[in-house]
């Protein structure tokens, strides 16, 4: 089975992770722009970070036969440095319309401060102007209220719920999210947020429509194989295969496809020039043969 991890911070992961993901059937990933674990202090670090998402990380992923896409945005934590946030908002349009940018994100609230609100709204407007979907990061604290508010404000700015992916849902937030017509994404964490056992129950209860599974794996305790493991567990627990395919692959294409930058043909039938640009190099492999030059790799992974 082909899988997509539509929220994973690969910049913080190793080549072993890429290899394991590929072996487990992951064909494409989306890396949302977010913070890097500590606050940045200058505009240049933001510029280089965004450039790495559309350049180096895309190249690195391709070495393992994985297509890398990203979202561009200013995260809510760093929105609180108001002077710097204003500079970042100024350069966002430079990056947001690049190839492979599938949404504005991850944006939303952390402490739900006025500064966060201002930056969130400005980026909703940018998404509208560029006709891009939005990926919302819902807060860890005061979650239910923060999630409702994220959706209220998105609607207030005229976005259609169908073009907004609300991430980091849990059992308490999912119903409102689906009832209002938004996409409901779930981050499967080993310890916090959703465990994969709980995810199985959510899909049992709510079905496959507009539900998306992701790992949000980053520099913290997290699991880049969360999507394959959850897919396997769902199958073991008797969830229909089409539900697993929708929540772990197809729904991400439906949600991010309207950007025009996330097409199944990119990884199923890449154009010749695309193959040359993205699948030729091997500098990360340091002397090993690039596996992408071999016959098409059959996922031998966790599920078949």
């Amino acid at each position, binding site marked *: 089975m082909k899988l997509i991890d539509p929220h994973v911070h690969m910049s913080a992961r190793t080549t072993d992770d890429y290899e394991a993901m590929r072996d487990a059937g992951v064909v494409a990933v989306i890396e949302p722009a977010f913070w890097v674990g500590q606050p940045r202090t200058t505009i240049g670090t933001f*510029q280089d970070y*965004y*450039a790495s998402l*559309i*350049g*180096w990380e*895309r*190249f690195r992923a391709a070495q393992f036969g994985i297509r890398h896409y990203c979202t561009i945005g200013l995260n809510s934590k760093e929105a609180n440095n108001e002077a710097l946030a204003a500079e970042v908002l100024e*350069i966002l349009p*430079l*990056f947001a*319309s*690049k*190839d*492979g940018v599938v949404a504005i994100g991850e944006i939303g609230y952390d402490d739900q401060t006025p500064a966060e609100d201002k930056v969130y709204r400005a980026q909703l407007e940018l998404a509208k102007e560029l006709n891009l979907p939005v990926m919302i990061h819902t807060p860890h604290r005061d979650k239910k209220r923060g999630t409702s508010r994220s959706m209220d404000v998105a609607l207030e700015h005229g976005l259609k719920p169908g073009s907004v992916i609300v991430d980091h849902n849990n059992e308490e937030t999912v119903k409102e999210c689906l009832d209002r017509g938004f996409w409901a994404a779930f981050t499967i964490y080993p310890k916090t947020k959703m465990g994969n056992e709980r995810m199985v129950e959510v899909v049992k209860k709510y079905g496959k429509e507009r539900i998306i599974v992701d790992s949000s794996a980053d520099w913290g305790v997290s699991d880049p194989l969360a999507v394959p493991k959850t897919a396997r567990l769902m199958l073991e627990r008797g969830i229909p295969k089409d539900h697993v395919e929708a929540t772990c692959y197809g729904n991400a294409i439906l949600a991010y496809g309207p950007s*025009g*930058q996330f097409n199944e043909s990119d990884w199923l039938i890449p*154009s*010749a*020039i*695309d193959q*040359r*640009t*993205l699948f*030729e*190099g*091997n*500098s990360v492999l340091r002397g090993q043969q690039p596996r992408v030059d071999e016959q098409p790799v059959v996922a031998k992974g966790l599920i078949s």
Partner: protein
Amino acid sequence: MVEAECMSATESMTLLDSWLQRQLKAETTAWLRDTCVATSAGGGTRALFIAFSTAGRRAGREDLRLSAADLAAAQEARRGWDPSRWSIDQAVRTRLVLALPSSDKKAWLTTLDQLFAAAGLEELVALYQALPLLPHPELLPPRIAEGVRSNMKPVFNAVALDNPITAERLEQDAWNQTVLKALFIASPVARMVGADRRANPKLAQMLIDYARERIAAKRPVPVDLWDAARPGCNESQRVELNRLQDSAAAATA
């Protein structure tokens, strides 16, 4: 010199326009023409940046289809220019960059640097491929060297392979490093334009040392190392190179 450079930029623009017109939809051709006209007229960089970013989805990413006559015309317009492996979006991006006003050198370079600083992988490849067509080649050596330093093989290839400006403009040490790096990352040295002309004994020694290192580690020597080293060899180096080649061949036999 300056006049000749401007002429090659003008001629390459004409060629790109005619090639693209054959493959682009009429509305895309019009969009490209309007953007280029506005940019050349000094209409600012905003429209150019947007057009540059969205060239792939506007124009498509198929291969540029060129005949033998087209390729000959390319060589005529700019010696060593080989667009045989270019895609449509790369040609469009090149055409857009060529539309930048260049009479104010400093402003021109600033805009070019901005394009590089915010470029994605595909855009970097297009920008480096376009370097030999740009005006003011004397300002470009730092940019060429930066491209050669890239850890992204497609970017390195864009500046090192099928690209005449690299041999024309890099200092000897930088050129030698470029050849050695190509061998390291298995990029075909045969596609480095001007390699025979730039060969030198210092490079030959670097490559001989590299061959020794590989043989000592019982690892294969890149097959194109010998031809890359030979033109620069002095007499004693030639003897040593042949000896190493024989022993490498014996090791793999």
